[in-house]
């Protein structure tokens, strides 16, 4: 017995010592300093070189450190001047001439001018550029239409395209088009991604691997100094841990709040933000073979799936029901006369009967996760149940995201009848052009994995791509949406609303439809 006594006493002493030690530092971490915004990110960034990265997570930092020639107008997806003050487009749509903003300096003190712009695009696009080896530049194809970039004078730059390409301006507003300091690239070479220098409202201060990226206010910003002194981006990969950090005061702002965690943030201590973005969650239907080759069966699937239930119950209201192939966030190009296929299982059964597809067996590719895929397994299961209810026999095959892409992108032929998919784009052209045209079938290098083909849609999309007048483009896109809605090559399921939570001290925050995080005007008391 004496043995147990000694140990217990020892344990208590040790416990008391530990409690004392921890108690003494407890006060130190409770609150984050005012003027410094701590942002909970979903992952460690790859690099802070806008030409080299592809993830929305990295864009959230970059958009605050760099500017592009143009940017999206607040609250919209329409472009407005940024580093370029205005521009002219030639009659045939192949020459874009930009007048640049005077007196802008990069954070490293060098001047922003036409040579800097030329350097940026040649670095990305020309294999023989001396700094092309600072890549790879996976999204350089956004500018593959660019034939030549030249400085006409120190403050004028001209892009010559190999063919008219209407999305060019909105691609320039995308992070891949952000302008980096040539001097910094020359100094740091392949290490530029860890030593970034741009013209944005915040300048890079420090990157502690797996802990934080710190940026500080740029008092000389051409658009006025930001309200914050500094922003700290903390990578917290696990959504539950991110939620806990937000609740414990370790971060001031968190993005991509899991739907189930939103209820934790009710009340005065937090503010919840929501913003629909250019996102579409859909099912690719195999229109080449099997039951979905018949348009009536594809429409039946659209009627049979209870999309309201999916967005409200599975996604807890963090998405809206999608009506067609173009997300409403592209307000100027969106056809608001379209309404979603209503949930109508009887109509679905009738259509199936008419097509003779009752009791058809379907293989359904579901992914476990992936960018923009929301809650793919739960959504897939709900869809399976809805389709079973109208008499379709659905077999789910689940794959990890990269494997899934490897299965779906080469086309569904011979493998599956339907597959989940989601896209986030920056121009209404991108998704339909890459995934609905006949020339975008997988064997031609596109993403039309369901082999949809309608010559009229092809024609409209080709015409919209070369039209430089926005009103004309809008008309063409609206016609395309109507046809695609009726042809139903996809089941249109949901448009994701991006969400964010801030503590009550954070002011002037807003989410953008572009899904970028712009912090210039944000303040923290």
């Amino acid at each position, binding site marked *: 017995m004496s043995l147990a006594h000694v140990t217990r006493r020892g344990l208590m002493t040790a416990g008391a010592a530990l409690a004392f030690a921890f108690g003494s530092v407890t006060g130190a971490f409770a609150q984050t300093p005012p003027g410094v915004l701590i942002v909970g990110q979903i*992952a460690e960034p790859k690099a802070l070189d806008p030409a080299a990265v*592809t993830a929305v997570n990295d864009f959230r930092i970059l958009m605050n450190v760099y500017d592009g020639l143009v940017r999206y107008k607040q609250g919209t997806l329409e472009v407005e001047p940024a580093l370029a003050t205005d521009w002219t487009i030639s009659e045939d749509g192949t020459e874009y001439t930009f007048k640049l903003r005077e007196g802008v300096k990069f954070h490293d003190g060098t001047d922003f001018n036409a040579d800097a712009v030329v350097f940026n695009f040649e670095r990305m696009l020309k294999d023989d550029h001396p700094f092309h080896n600072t890549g790879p530049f996976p999204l350089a194809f956004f500018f593959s239409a660019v034939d030549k970039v030249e400085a006409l004078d120190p403050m004028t730059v001209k892009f010559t395209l190999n063919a008219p390409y209407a999305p060019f301006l909105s691609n320039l507003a995308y992070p891949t088009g952000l302008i980096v300091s040539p001097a910094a690239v020359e100094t740091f070479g392949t290490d530029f991604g860890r030593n970034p220098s741009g013209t944005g409202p915040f300048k890079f201060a420090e990157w502690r691997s797996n802990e934080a990226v710190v940026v500080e206010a740029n008092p000389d910003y051409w658009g006025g100094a930001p309200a914050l002194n500094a922003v700290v981006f903390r990578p917290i*990969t696990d959504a539950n*841990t991110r939620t806990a*950090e937000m609740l414990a005061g370790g971060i001031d702002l968190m993005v991509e709040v899991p739907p189930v965690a939103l209820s934790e943030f009710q009340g005065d201590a937090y503010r919840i933000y929501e913003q629909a973005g250019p996102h579409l969650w859909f099912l690719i239907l195999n229109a080449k073979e099997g039951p979905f080759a018949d348009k009536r069966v594809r429409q039946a699937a659209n009627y049979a799936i209870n999309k309201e239930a999916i967005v409200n119950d599975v996604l807890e209201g963090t998405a809206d029901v999608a009506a067609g192939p173009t997300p409403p966030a592209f307000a100027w190009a969106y056809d608001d006369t379209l309404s979603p296929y209503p949930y109508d299982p009887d109509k679905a059964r009738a259509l199936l009967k008419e097509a003779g597809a009752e009791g058809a067996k379907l293989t359904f590719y579901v992914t476990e996760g*992936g960018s923009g895929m929301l809650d793919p397994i739960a959504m897939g299961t709900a869809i399976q149940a809805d389709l079973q209810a109208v008499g379709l026999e659905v077999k789910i095959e689940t794959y990890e995201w*990269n494997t899934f892409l490897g299965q779906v992108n080469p086309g569904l032929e011979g493998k599956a009848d339907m597959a989940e998919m989601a896209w986030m784009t920056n121009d209404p052209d991108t998704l339909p052009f890459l995934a609905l045209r006949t020339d975008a079938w997988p064997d031609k*290098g596109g993403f039309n994995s369901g082999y949809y083909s309608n010559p009229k849609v092809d024609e409209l999309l080709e015409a919209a791509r070369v039209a430089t007048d926005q009103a004309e483009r809008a008309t063409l896109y609206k016609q395309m949406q109507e046809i695609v809605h009726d042809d139903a090559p996809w089941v249109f399921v949901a448009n994701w609303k991006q969400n964010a939570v801030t503590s009550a001290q954070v002011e002037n925050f807003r989410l953008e439809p572009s899904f970028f995080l712009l912090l210039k005007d944000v303040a923290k008391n």
Partner: protein
Amino acid sequence: MTGYILKRLLSAIPVLLGITVIVFLIMALIPGDPATAILGSYATPENVARLNRDLGLDKPLVSQYFIWLSNMLHGDFGTSFALNRPVIDEVLERFNATLVLAGTAFVLCAIFGVMAGVISAANQYGWADKTITFAVLLGISIPSFFLGMMMILFFAVNLRWFPVSGMWPIYGDRTIWVLLHHLAMPAIALAVVATGVVARLSRSAMLEVLRQDFIRTARAKGVDERGVIWRHALKAAMVSIIPVLGIQAGFVLSGAVYIEIVFQWPGVGRMLVDAILKRDILLVQGGVVFVAACYVIFNIAVDVAQSLLDPRIKT
């Protein structure tokens, strides 16, 4: 003894070579490639082929393997695709963090596990034994990631005694106390299961030893009970406890993966999970080879320690 250690070290070489082959093959065989992972939605065959060429992944597999192996023998582990920095920097930094976490958890589970086992055995069927056995059962049954989340909820979110996650605070000095403050919850969460296993096995090892003749002799000689248990019995029992500790070290190291995710600890386990999901081939390969090498060396150390305690084991 030196000869024995040398022999064990030499025998580790084929093991490590085998590991390089296996991890290389696994990364080559799993579907999906880094270019697809990087490009995501934009992974057209054309874009993928171009990016693979830029990443140097268009060479035949066999030559990729030997390039990797010979670079590694020259100390060059390559550059991570997803993090854009040298693999060796990332692995060393991350492994350091894991060692701090797993090392602390290991020390905790060794001390408390053996102590609990000894106390249990010394008081067989007494109240201390019953309490400990019950606590051990509870500890073994709780998944560590769940325990970690509950600890965060209770001690960090509600009571605010500890920080939720991370290894260091964003601001302030990096003192040992600050580190301990961040370390306490993850280390305890990680140690709980291992402590239970060690306690159970220590208890049975001790009970076996306590029944042996030399214990009866020691008691007959008039050695006091504490001396019998801690000096005579425990030393003999350690021969069978140490290999269990060796296994638990491996367990703590692999269990660290969950804990590192839950507590956002910047360790090598979380790094490997992220790297696998992003198909960051060189980082996975480098990380696995490095961890495997450490594990092999640790096992040799355990065997050596065992042979020091029990000369019969030396061969």
